[in-house]
């Protein structure tokens, strides 16, 4: 019902806009019509920006192309039409600071910080999860707010790294609580602190049958050469100086490997280049590269995985007999699972992962549910009759859950609202009443607050 009202409201708004600008030049009117043709919030926002960029009748100079006719009566009408603040102000994010580690402290909770865009940008090189991508599209400059979990996760990571203990952390929490965003914030912090970072924003892509696979009898698993090559290329593009300084502690020794295999003492970057060049060797190269990075202690190494629950279920790949392949029978997921369960240790650094409830085909299964002691916000609790796989229980052993709070704090929500207001991303002029009502309606859930609270209202 509410969605029907929104649609009717949008149609009415669109018609009103078109009626108001009937006098304009055909090209401008066509541009506006094209901009408002769709019913999505993003296209409506584009229309708003087009309108905002149109100079009002009183400010139009004779030299600039005027969208208004020359008659004085029409000029007066147009002046009245563009008086609303929404049509005059443009998005202004110049006051927003860029994410820096020093700015993340107790006193700055609720402060909105833009993701840095200097090269190499990990968000561009590794990509971002789909849900985060949709939220990035809402604003002109991707941002996040400093939250209490940001501080505590950072502290947890530092403590674990200093004590040298096993640090395999999984960020858990209900849908829309900000797990992927927290992971992104931590990655940005680690990149700025000169960690070597390997980030998989969509672990589902390792198991959803979108990359080539071939059986390898020596490892009795299915290799994923293109996926391995992609991860190697992303690590190379990050351009960390450690890859050029660290050297191999062992030869790359595989029988019948193509010529040019790097030897002990050569730099890691040469191993990566070899894996990119010889794609058939990429899975083995990736395995050795991660082993070298995990065993060295000069540079901390972060293995970050989003959609972590996808690794603990059957993949969509099939054997030649059309039987489903388990994820630990694929080379890349098996490698990640071995780091997750502690078979392969990261001596200086951490494995940091986040669950995701966005894709209903890949919800957390029984083994990961019980290993992390999840609650009902992660789906139905498994009962005594659900099958449990010993293999996945082995791979889920020893994981530590980092629980996200269910609600945003008021300061954090206010920080989000400020950014969206300055960005003219909202359909209305926000007031305190609007803010508090949407905060209460969404129960402080970040995704609900933004999408079904702020973006879905026509209140003014």
């Amino acid at each position: 019902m509410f969605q029907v009202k929104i649609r009717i409201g949008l149609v009415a708004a669109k018609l009103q806009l078109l009626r108001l600008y009937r006098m304009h030049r055909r090209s401008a009117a066509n541009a506006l019509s094209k901009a408002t043709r769709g019913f999505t919030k993003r296209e409506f926002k584009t229309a708003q920006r087009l309108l905002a960029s149109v100079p009002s009748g009183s400010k139009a100079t004779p030299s600039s192309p005027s969208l208004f006719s020359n008659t004085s009566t029409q000029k007066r009408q147009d002046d009245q039409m563009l008086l609303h603040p929404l049509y005059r102000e443009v998005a202004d994010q110049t006051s927003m600071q860029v994410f820096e580690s020093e700015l993340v402290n107790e006193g700055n909770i609720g402060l909105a910080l833009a993701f840095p865009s200097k090269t190499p940008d990990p968000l561009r090189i590794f990509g971002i999860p789909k849900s985060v991508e949709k939220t990035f599209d809402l604003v002109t400059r991707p941002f996040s707010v400093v939250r209490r979990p940001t501080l505590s996760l950072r502290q947890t990571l530092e403590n674990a790294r200093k004590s040298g203990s096993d640090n395999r952390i999984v960020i858990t929490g209900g849908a829309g609580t900000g797990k992927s965003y927290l992971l992104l914030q931590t990655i940005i912090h680690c990149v700025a602190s000169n960690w070597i970072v390997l980030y998989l924003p969509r672990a589902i892509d390792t198991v959803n049958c979108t990359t080539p696979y071939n059986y390898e009898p020596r490892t009795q698993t299915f290799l994923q050469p293109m996926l391995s090559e992609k991860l190697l290329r992303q690590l190379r593009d990050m351009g960390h100086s450690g890859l050029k300084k660290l050297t191999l502690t062992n030869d790359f020794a595989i029988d019948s490997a193509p010529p040019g295999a790097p030897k002990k003492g050569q730099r890691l970057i040469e191993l990566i280049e070899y894996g990119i060049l010889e794609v058939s060797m990429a899975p083995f190269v990736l395995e050795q590269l991660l082993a070298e990075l995990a065993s060295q202690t000069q540079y901390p190494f972060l293995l970050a995985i989003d959609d972590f629950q996808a690794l603990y279920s059957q993949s969509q790949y099939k054997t030649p007999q059309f039987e489903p392949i388990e994820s630990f029978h694929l080379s890349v997921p098996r490698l990640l699972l071995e780091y997750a369960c502690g078979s392969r240790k990261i001596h200086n650094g951490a494995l940091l992962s986040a669950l995701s409830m966005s894709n209903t085909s890949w919800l957390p299964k029984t083994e990961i549910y019980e290993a992390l002691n999840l609650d009902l916000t992660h789906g139905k609790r498994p009962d005594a009759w659900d099958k449990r796989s010993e293999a996945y229980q082995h791979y889920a052993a020893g994981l530590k859950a980092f629980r996200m709070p269910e609600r945003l704090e008021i300061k954090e929500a206010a920080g989000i609202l400020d950014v969206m207001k300055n960005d003219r991303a909202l359909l209305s002029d926000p007031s305190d009443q609007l803010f508090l009502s949407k905060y209460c309606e969404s129960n402080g859930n970040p995704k609900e607050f933004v999408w079904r609270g702020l973006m879905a209202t026509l209140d003014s």
Partner: protein
Amino acid sequence: MVYIMGVALSDAYPAKIALTGIYGIGRTLARRICARLQIHENAPLTSLTPQQTTALTAFLSAPANAPLLPKLPLASPHFRPNFHTNLVAPPTGKATNTNAIKAIPPKSETSLAARAQNEQQSVGLGDRLRNIKVETDLRRAVRENIMHHRLVNTYIGRRHAMGLPVRGQRTNSNAKTARRLNKLERRG
């Protein structure tokens, strides 16, 4: 456009959908064929390598001649190949050099053919793809079936010859499709 057995398959679809453009292949069979040839079914058709396209054509030209594939042995979580890195304590309890990487033995010792021959592994329920027919073979089979019915003078044969519905539908009205398509030399 990718051409397989003379049929132009659209580039706009993933392999498991594009293969249904071949007469005789539906959604399920397309997925099974992709699995058998180890083509990832969500692959865009343009991303298929020439070797994969050749393998597809070779298989579909003569499915009965394709070799039986043995069931592939798959590694348990505790399986360790000879080549492994940075494993602190393998579950077997044997002490190993932490960063030792040993060479994998030559391929001939662990080849698939040798394993199948030695261990005589079964193929499970049998290779269901050996009896499939596609394109011209399937059309010929359909025509032969209709001709057989006509030759032995069955009801089905007579209805095909008259161009009327075969399966007991009404003819007082409708039956347009049957009048158009039901022939002794049916297109298939």
